C-alpha cells in the first residue's frame, strides 16, 4: 500500500453553536482516486475548506505529505501541492483564460520549482483541456462546461500533488460528465491524487477506488464503491427512514 498523502486526524469545525464537522478522521493515499459523498449540508465542503485552508479547523490536525499544515494559510498549502476547484466556478473575470492559468503557475507551481515560462505551460494545460481556442477570451464568454473545465485547468496549473474537485459535474449533461471524468482519469494516470466530491452517483462510483460517506458532520462509512452501494447506513442517510 502507498504512503498516505493526506491525513486528517480528529478534525472538528464549529460555526457558532453548530458543529459542522465532528471529530472527522480519514486518510488519502498517494495516487488514489478518492470519493467523498453525503447529503447536502453533511459537511463535505466544510472539510474541503479545512483541508485547502479556506477555513481553520477548531480541533484536530491535518497532515500533508507528513507535514502538519493545520496552521498554514491556504496559499502555502497550494504551494505544497493541494489544489482545489470550486463548486461554483470562481474564475478571475478580468483576465483571459491564459492569464487565469498564469496566476497559479506563477504563484504556486513556479514558486516551488523556480520556472518562469508561465505562458507556455498555460497553453499546454489549455490544450489538454480542449480550451485552446479560447485562450485569449475572458471567462464571461464560456459555456457552463467550459467554465468547469477552466476551474479544473486552473487547479491543475498549480501543479498539485492532490487535486480536490468539488462538484465539478453538477448540472452537466451525461456526455459532458463523461468528458470531465475522462480528464480526471487522465490526470490521475499522470500521478495526481484526486478527491472527488460529487452528487452524481454514476460518476463517483465509476471513478473512485475508495469512498467515504458523510452525514451530519461525521464519517458514517468508508469502503470500495461496491461496499458503499450495499451499506444500509448509507442508504438510510440518503433516503431517510
Amino acid at each position, binding site marked *: 500500500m502507498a504512503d498516505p498523502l493526506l491525513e486528517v486526524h480528529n478534525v472538528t469545525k464549529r460555526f457558532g453553536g453548530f458543529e459542522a464537522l465532528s471529530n472527522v478522521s480519514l486518510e488519502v493515499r498517494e495516487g488514489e482516486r478518492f470519493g467523498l459523498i453525503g447529503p447536502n449540508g453533511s459537511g463535505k465542503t466544510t472539510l474541503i475548506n479545512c483541508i485547502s485552508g479556506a477555513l481553520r479547523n477548531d480541533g484536530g490536525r491535518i497532515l500533508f505529505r507528513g507535514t502538519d499544515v493545520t496552521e498554514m494559510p491556504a496559499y502555502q498549502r497550494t504551494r505544497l501541492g493541494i489544489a482545489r476547484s470550486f463548486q461554483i466556478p470562481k474564475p*478571475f473575470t478580468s*483576465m483571459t483564460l491564459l492569464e487565469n492559468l498564469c496566476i497559479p503557475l506563477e504563484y504556486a507551481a513556479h514558486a516551488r520549482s523556480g520556472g518562469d515560462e508561465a505562458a507556455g505551460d498555460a497553453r499546454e494545460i489549455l490544450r489538454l483541456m480542449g480550451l485552446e481556442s479560447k485562450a485569449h477570451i475572458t471567462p464571461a464568454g464560456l459555456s457552463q462546461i467550459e467554465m468547469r473545465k477552466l476551474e479544473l485547468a486552473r487547479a491543475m496549473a*498549480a501543479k498539485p500533488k492532490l487535486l480536490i474537485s468539488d462538484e465539478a459535474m453538477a448540472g452537466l449533461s451525461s456526455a459532458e460528465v463523461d468528458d470531465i471524468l475522462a480528464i480526471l482519469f487522465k490526470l490521475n494516470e499522470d500521478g495526481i491524487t484526486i478527491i472527488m466530491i460529487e452528487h452524481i452517483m454514476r460518476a463517483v462510483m465509476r471513478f473512485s477506488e475508495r469512498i467515504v460517506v458523510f452525514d451530519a458532520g461525521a464519517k458514517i462509512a468508508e469502503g470500495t464503491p461496491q461496499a458503499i452501494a450495499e451499506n444500509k447506513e448509507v442508504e438510510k442517510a440518503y433516503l431517510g427512514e
Partner: protein
Amino acid sequence: MQRRVFLASMLAVVVLGALVTRVIQNQYYYFAAYVILQYVVLATAWNILGGYTGYVNFGSAAFFALGAYTSVVLIKAAAAPLVVLVVAGGLVSGLLGLGIGYLTLRLRGVFFAIATLALAVVLQTMFINWEYVGGARGIYIIRPKTVPFFTSYVEFLFAVMVVLAVVAVTVAWWIENSRVGRGLAAIRDNEEAAECMGVPTLKLKLVATTVSGVLMGVAGAPFPYYVTYVEPSSAFNLDYAVNSLAMPMIGGTTTWAGPVLGAVLLGTAQQVATVTISSALNLLIVGIILVAFVILAPEGIIGLVRRVTKGKRG
C-alpha cells in the same frame, strides 16, 4: 524594450518639468499644475488599492491630511527641509496604510469602504483636538523666501510635485507589470480563488495598502507650504476622497495610465472651471461626468479607446 520606453518617457517628463521652470515666469501655471500633479499622485495611489486590488478607499483625505500634518509637526518642531517632510509624510501615511491593510483580513467590499470613511472621521477629530498642530484653529506655515536653483518657492513646489508624480506613476507601472500586480488583479477578481491558487493575499494586500498610503502621504506632505494655512476641515476635505476615486474611474482603473489621464482631464477641467464659470456648476460637472462615465464608459477613457481601436481592427 517596453520598460526602456516607459522609463525614458518618465525621465523626459522630469526634464520637461525642469525646463518649464526656466521658460515660464507666470506663477499661475505652477499653482494650477501643482494641483493637477497632486491629483495625479493621489489618483494613482488610490488606484493601486482601488483599481488593482478592488478595495475602495473612501478615506483618501485621511492619508493626504496625515502626510500634511506630519509636515506641520516637523516644520514646527525641527524646521525640516521639504525632502525630509516628503519622506516622513510617506512613512507615517504608509504605516496607517499598513494598519488598514490588516482591516482587510476581516472586511471586504463595502464594509472596508465604510471603515475607511470612519477612520477619516476619527483621525480628523484627533487633529481637531491636537493643539500642537493648531487644532481646529489651524496653523500658519510660512514658506521659505528663497530656494536654491529656483526663482520662487512655488516653482520649487511644482518641481517637487513633478518628481513625486513620476515616482508614483512609475511605482504603479512597476506593480502593474510585475508578479505583484497580477496577484493583486487575482485578488480583485476573486480573493478566495486567488488564495487557493497560491497567491499570498494578505501579504499582497498589505503591500497595496501600504504603497497606496505612502503615495497619498507623499502627496500631502508639501501641502502646508502650498496653502500656507492648514486646518483640519481643508486638509480632510472630502474633495480629496472624491477626486482620488473619480479620476481613476473616469480614466480607467486597470492601468497606470487611467488615473493619470483622469487626473489630468478632471483636474484641468476643475482648474479651468474655477477661473471661468463662477458657480456651483463646478461641482455639477464632477457629478455629471462621473455618472455619465460609470454608465456609458464603465472602463473609463482607456477602456473606450481600447474598444474603439479593437472595433477598427476586428
